[in-house]
């Protein structure tokens, strides 16, 4: 290009009044011509320059989130909620995959050994979300827990959000695997209410104890109950209607206690 910009052309370019072809030609010239860049610089409003620079910095510097965070954003979770969830170890894809794999093996065993296998699957299925919730927050599970405690964001809200996300990410694969491999029998979903009851109970207990310890304690209690009712032959007594009503009661009472004592979690 042999021509140079004059004042009028520089003003029209700075104001965004040039058509795309001429603007592209000017930009190609500006890359190689310090004289014209010097002519243009005073014409561009400072505020516009800052705004453009901010947009470039935002696009370049903002990190590309991890796969789980991207997935959450894809299903409509807001970016800051997605970041708070992605920080939880038990919401990493490795943990979710491991939980699903354990349940897959349990279901495959259930297919081979009929009733013992089914009891095994129903006993294990609630443990996966309980363990996940126990490792989703708290001093032992969240490296930045102490920093978070001194921040204004509600610790109770973080705890509930992560617990809900863990329940969804562990319950969905369990339901899908169970129904797909064991058939359309509602017994396959009999672990769901126990899972809710154990999870909510461990959340209530975490007011006083480390969440991971609470999860361990309620899991041991649960497995002891299963073992006690299956000493001689495989039994689904823990999943009877009366049992399910009991789990529902525990879930509701724990929920009420959580809401009533929410301030104590912060």
């Amino acid at each position: 290009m042999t021509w140079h910009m004059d004042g009028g052309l520089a003003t029209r370019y700075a104001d965004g009044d040039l058509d795309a072809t001429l603007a592209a030609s000017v930009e190609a010239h500006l890359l190689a011509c310090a004289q014209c860049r010097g002519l243009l610089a005073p014409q561009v409003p400072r505020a516009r320059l800052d705004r453009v620079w901010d947009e470039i910095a935002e696009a370049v510097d903002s990190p590309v989130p991890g796969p789980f965070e991207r997935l959450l954003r894809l299903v409509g979770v807001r970016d800051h909620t997605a970041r708070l969830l992605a920080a939880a170890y038990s919401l990493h894809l490795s943990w979710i995959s491991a939980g699903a794999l354990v349940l897959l093996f349990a279901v495959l065993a259930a297919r081979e050994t009929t009733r013992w296998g089914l009891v095994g699957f129903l006993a294990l299925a609630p443990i996966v979300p309980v363990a996940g919730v126990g490792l989703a927050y708290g001093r032992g599970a969240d490296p930045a827990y102490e920093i978070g405690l001194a921040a204004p964001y509600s610790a109770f809200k973080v705890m509930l959000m992560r617990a809900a996300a863990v329940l969804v990410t562990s319950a969905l694969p369990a339901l899908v695997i169970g129904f797909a491999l064991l058939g359309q029998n509602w017994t396959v979903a009999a672990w769901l209410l126990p899972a809710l009851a154990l999870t909510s109970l461990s959340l209530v207990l975490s007011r006083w104890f480390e969440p991971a310890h609470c999860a361990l304690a309620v899991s041991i209690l649960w497995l002891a109950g299963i073992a006690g009712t299956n000493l001689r032959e495989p039994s689904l007594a823990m999943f009877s209607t009366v049992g399910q009503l009991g789990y529902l009661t525990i879930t509701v009472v724990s929920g009420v206690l959580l809401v009533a004592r929410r301030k104590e979690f912060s």
Partner: protein
Amino acid sequence: MSVVVEGLTKAYGRSSHALNGLSFTAGVGVNGLLGPNGAGKTTLIRLLATVLTPDGGTMRLLGRDPATERSAIRRRLGYLPQEPGYHRGFTVFEFVDYVAILKEMADRRARHDEVRRVIDAVGLTDVSGKKIRALSGGMRRRVGIAQALLGEPELVLLDEPTAGLDPEERLRFRELISRIGENRTVILSTHQIEDVAALCARVVVLKDGRSAFEGTPEELRALAKGHTWLGEKKGGLLSWRTGEGVFRSIGVPPEGARLVEPTVEDAYLLLLGEAALVAAG
């Protein structure tokens, strides 16, 4: 005054009193907290950070009562714990962004601008895209400082930020902390007496959960005037052989010793007496 503490008590269990009627005040500038292990420094910092609640006494932080206005205080507070944990899989940017979210910065663009600002303030812009697990210990500490600066807090609490750092990193931190303290209240808990002498406008020495001294580093140093000796013989309350082969003694003069100008460290050791010996092992 940004921090006013009166008669503060905190116990762990029935017999272990971490704080035992502590009173002190702190205003704009760097305020040092000195004391041996177990003197109650970390407990005090955690109380000021509203992470713990006291058993007794009163606190006013930034003119507010933490018992009833905790969230309002937390919005104006920056806190670097003694052992800050980091999500090591996060990059520097992601981690600081994570803390910014916990500080209720909901607007993404404004939050990211603030994250970039604090990362730049601690000189980590070049590594902001690096995973935290790939950073050195000193750089991780700077990430910790960066998150504490989010939202231009008026009160910054730093618990042993220079522990375990090499001399170059410590100098860098001194420069950084002095800059932070230019227009806000910084409470710096430390074992490093040199840091206090170099940085702090005021210093509080904790002993057995109480304030044993409150004043300027120069006033602290003056406590040891007339009590610091150099001589051929060992003596006094505390005594150690220097690099020149003579004994530096604090307290009662050993025979033939001559009086020398004290340092802040001499005064600190004189103040703590037996506690200093226990802390030194």
